């Protein structure tokens, strides 16, 4: 607006200057330019000529000349009165300015709207932090708004909350509150204890109190220990625990049969029950899913192999008959059958397990009055004692109530050659895993093994070789350590191809075998070794690997392209010799393959090819945009989803 008014004034000035004649040239040129601009100025002045200061929205005529106060004053004459008026007016006009005209309605409304909008904008802008927090934060409010109570509740407060509801709970609380033996919080002694203490002398009371405290501390310690142990999740630990328990049971049984035969019998029955259960279920067999996978893995993984064999061993041990024979039929006329269990497993058919086999020789003897289990264990113990005796020449003292054992030892010490022969025979038979048939023949009730001649002939040779080492009590310890090299016959296995496996000695008092004895057949040792060699004949792992590597190397090379067409430009057909030089010309040689990383690593194949099957599972790289760096995303993924995390709020999570 100001610009417009200035323009008007400038025009007026122009005309004033024209009327005065001062500088000719300048004026002339100005005049010319003014004349030239007349048309334009007119149109411009038409727009601008209205002094906007005076314009209102009601102004209709655009040509109306502005009337100023000065113009009006010009009409006044030079009278004193008029002079005063002039003065006053000119004084006032200096101080007062004309108000600007009100804007047109649309414009003014627009200004109001803009102002209001800015105000509203600022107002809603206050919510910015809340909104951005909601948008970015993981926690999105759920309905109904749920705020978990994060205060910790201590045990006492929790216990106070408890109120008995069921009749059982009510009974228990009644009992607890009624009893004098319940310790109350913040007190050292129960009521009953206090009562007891009050009826004692001071010294006694103090002692008693100390005693009680000690017992309580011990109890607490035991409880804590049990709680700690209960929490252990390691399978290995539990396996060991179980094994320990089993051993303990056996030991206990041994103890018991010395001291308390009745209890030992019970224990034995318990063990027998366990054995039956083990036989009935499939827990430690090689037919389960786990065992099958382990069997597959065991080809490459020694650990799996070991785990499997351990499991089988457990099964076997559990299945073993502790009660060796049923002598209940002794009174009857029938010849009792002595099932020398364990002994047959002692000699496994697996040549690799031979060395780790402990052998326990059993002398078969009779005991008329003693119970069966005692008889059996008496034998075992006697064996051990004997071994000790021969080594240390130490006299074994036995308690009086174990007379038969004593007798037995005495008899052993006398060791007639006949008896020894018998023993050895029995031992040898036992090694070959027969169910030995032993009948009481002599009057004194000694068992003598009866066998057919053919059988004896067949096994004669083997027996002889075994006789040398089968004075068992002497060699017991040795046989556990020494490998029986002389036994292993010629096996068809390439000595250069082998995988070193750390041999593990299984320390166990119980016999170990790898196969069930029931379906055993009499196969010669040599035959067995042969079959094993045959079984593993195909498993040439090293050769297989080298073959695989060769394939990998050759497949990574690009192949030459042969464009040679036989008969093209030459005579073709049968019996025509192809010119090799020509053939070579049509061969396009492939560029040499880039060097492989594994070209000089002997037992390693590095595959660097793209795998399309994996590709469809790979995360799109655009996704990493949010994470900026791939490693950040990867580390995010590697976080485990713990329960506590999953309980935190997520978009669709449910609140309790």
């Amino acid at each position, binding site marked *: 607006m100001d610009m417009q008014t200035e323009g008007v004034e400038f025009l007026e000035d122009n005309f004033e200057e024209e009327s005065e004649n001062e500088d000719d040239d300048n004026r002339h040129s100005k005049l010319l330019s003014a004349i030239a601009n007349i048309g334009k100025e007119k149109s411009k002045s038409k727009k601008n000529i209205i002094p906007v200061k005076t314009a209102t929205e009601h102004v209709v005529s655009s040509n109306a000349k502005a009337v100023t106060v000065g113009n009006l004053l010009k009409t006044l004459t030079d009278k004193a009165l008029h002079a005063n008026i002039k003065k006053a007016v000119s004084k006032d006009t200096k101080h007062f300015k004309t108000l600007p005209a009100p804007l047109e309605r649309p414009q003014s*409304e*627009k200004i*109001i*709207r*803009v102002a*209001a*909008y800015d*105000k*509203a*904008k600022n*107002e*809603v*802008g*206050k*919510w910015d932090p809340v*909104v951005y927090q*909601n*948008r970015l934060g993981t926690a*999105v*409010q*759920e*309905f109904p708004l749920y705020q978990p109570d994060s205060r910790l509740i201590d045990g006492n407060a929790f216990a106070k909350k408890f109120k008995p509801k069921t009749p059982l709970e009510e009974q228990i609380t009644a009992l607890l509150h009624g009893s004098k033996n319940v310790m109350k919080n913040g007190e050292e002694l129960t009521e009953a204890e206090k009562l007891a203490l009050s009826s004692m002398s001071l010294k006694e009371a103090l002692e008693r109190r100390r005693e009680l405290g000690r017992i309580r501390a011990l109890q607490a310690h035991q409880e804590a220990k049990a709680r700690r142990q209960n929490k252990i999740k390691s399978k290995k630990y539990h396996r060991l625990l179980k094994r320990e328990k089993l051993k303990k049971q056996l030991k206990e049984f041994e103890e018991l049969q010395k001291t308390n035969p009745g209890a030992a019998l019970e224990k034995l029955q318990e063990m027998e029950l366990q054995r039956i259960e083990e036989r009935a279920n499939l827990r430690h067999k090689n037919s389960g899913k786990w065992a099958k996978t382990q069997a597959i893995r065991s080809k490459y993984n020694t650990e799996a192999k070991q785990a499997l064999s351990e499991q089988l061993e457990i099964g076997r041990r559990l299945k073993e008959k502790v009660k060796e024979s049923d002598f209940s039929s002794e009174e009857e006329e029938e010849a009792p059958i002595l099932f020398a269990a364990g002994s047959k497993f002692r000699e496994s058919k697996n040549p690799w397990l031979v060395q780790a086999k402990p052998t326990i020789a059993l002398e078969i003897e009779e005991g008329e009055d003693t119970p069966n289990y005692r008889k059996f264990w008496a034998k075992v113990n006697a064996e051990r004692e004997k071994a000790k005796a021969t080594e240390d020449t130490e006299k074994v003292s036995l308690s009086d109530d174990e007379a038969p054992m004593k007798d037995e030892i005495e008899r052993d010490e006398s060791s007639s050659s006949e008896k020894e022969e018998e023993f050895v025979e029995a031992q040898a038979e036992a090694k070959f895993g027969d169910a030995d048939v032993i009948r009481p023949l002599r009057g004194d009730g000694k068992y003598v093994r009866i066998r057919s001649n053919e059988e004896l002939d067949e096994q004669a040779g083997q027996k002889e070789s075994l006789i040398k080492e089968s004075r068992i009590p002497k060699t017991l310890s040795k046989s556990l350590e020494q490998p029986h090299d002389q036994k292993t016959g010629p096996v068809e296995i390439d000595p250069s191809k082998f995988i070193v496996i750390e041999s593990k000695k299984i320390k166990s008092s119980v016999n170990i075998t790898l196969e069930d004895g029931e379906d055993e057949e009499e196969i010669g040792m040599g035959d067995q070794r042969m079959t094993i060699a045959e079984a593993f004949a195909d498993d040439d792992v090293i050769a297989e690997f080298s073959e695989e590597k060769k394939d990998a190397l050759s497949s990574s090379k690009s192949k030459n392209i042969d464009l040679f067409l036989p008969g093209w430009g030459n005579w073709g057909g049968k019996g025509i010799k192809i010119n090799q030089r020509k053939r070579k010309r049509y061969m396009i040689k492939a560029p040499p393959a880039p060097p492989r990383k594994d070209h000089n690593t002997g037992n390693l194949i590095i595959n660097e090819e793209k795998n399309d099957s994996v590709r*469809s*599972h*790979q*995360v*799109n790289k655009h*996704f990493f945009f949010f994470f900026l760096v791939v490693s950040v*995303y990867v580390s*995010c*993924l590697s976080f485990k*989803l713990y*329960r506590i*995390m*999953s*309980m935190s709020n*997520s*978009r*669709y*999570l*449910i609140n*309790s």
Partner: protein
Amino acid sequence: MKIKTLLRNPDEYTHETKHDIHKINRSYDPSLHPFEVARDQSSEFSIAFTVEGSAFYTIGDDKTIRRWKCETPLEGNIEEVVSTNISKSILLSISHHWRDAKYATAGEVCQIWEESRAQPIRSFLWGVDSLHQLRFNYIETNILSARASDRSVILYDIREKKPLRKVVMKLQCNALSWNPMEAFTFTVANEDYHLYSFDMRNLNAPMNVHKDRTSAVIDVDYSPTVNEFVSGSYDKTITIFEADKGHSRDIYHTKRMQRITCVLWSNDDKYIMSGSDEMNIRMWKARASEKLGIVKERERVALNSAAKLKEKFAAHPQIKRIARHRQVPRHVFNAKKELKAMVQSRARKEANRRAHSKPGTVPYVPERQKHVVREDE
């Protein structure tokens, strides 16, 4: 024996010729027609509950605003209007203030009323034929928005004398909904198959364009808390969008459901209501796979960890594929295919034009700036 029979004159029920008008005998005895009560025939368009929820207002095509009580009338009584206000102009929509005893009506003009007064306390006019819908902001309760017949959305503040601002879109908006979690965000359902989320402080371009529909979007409503909204479309489907995503989270459809006329997200965030052309109201679960009813602690933990796992591995292609896959009706599937072809062809044409003209003459226009014609101050 005397047998009672109805005696009827055959002339009353037989035609002489086949062109005769069949006469129906009918008794007009009012005692025989208890349901035929004389009623107000004017239809009600829009409804708004008062703050305390004990009453509600309706507007009809007779320029009247009626207040009703929420309580069911005693037996035998007929629901009666508590009070009636008469407006000078036509009314099309009503919305009640969330805190005060005020409400706003839209029609020829936007009027603000106080519950205790018979005359509007304020009226806004900004050169528009008619305003179709009004919605009060949930958080800044004095701000309200209206969509108008000139393809525009207008913002008002009931404390001001004039409207705040107007944004004109390329096509008509069919519905409008404020985000209850964000004071300045609202979403409009547009005739051009898309939904647009606006930040009311920056109206020259939408904040987000939500695609995935294959026909005009008729209605939109926000979830009370989860920052999602549901939209009903003329393509007979209901689609749920996450407010910050351009594409839908889920699509609901059934064989018998026709064109959707309105959708509503329930206030407990569990359900979605939809009304459709075949005159049925349907209730849907807001999250289709969610278990309804009591969820025990263990189950809750299991579900939550499953959800968390899904979230964690969401970027994995196979998981993404499973999460995204939806079976849609054949017509929707085909329409989507067609739309995709159209979009691709337009893009191709633009690229060709750009390739064969002077550099800079064919500018790249971002998708968000394509849909707003102008912002009026």
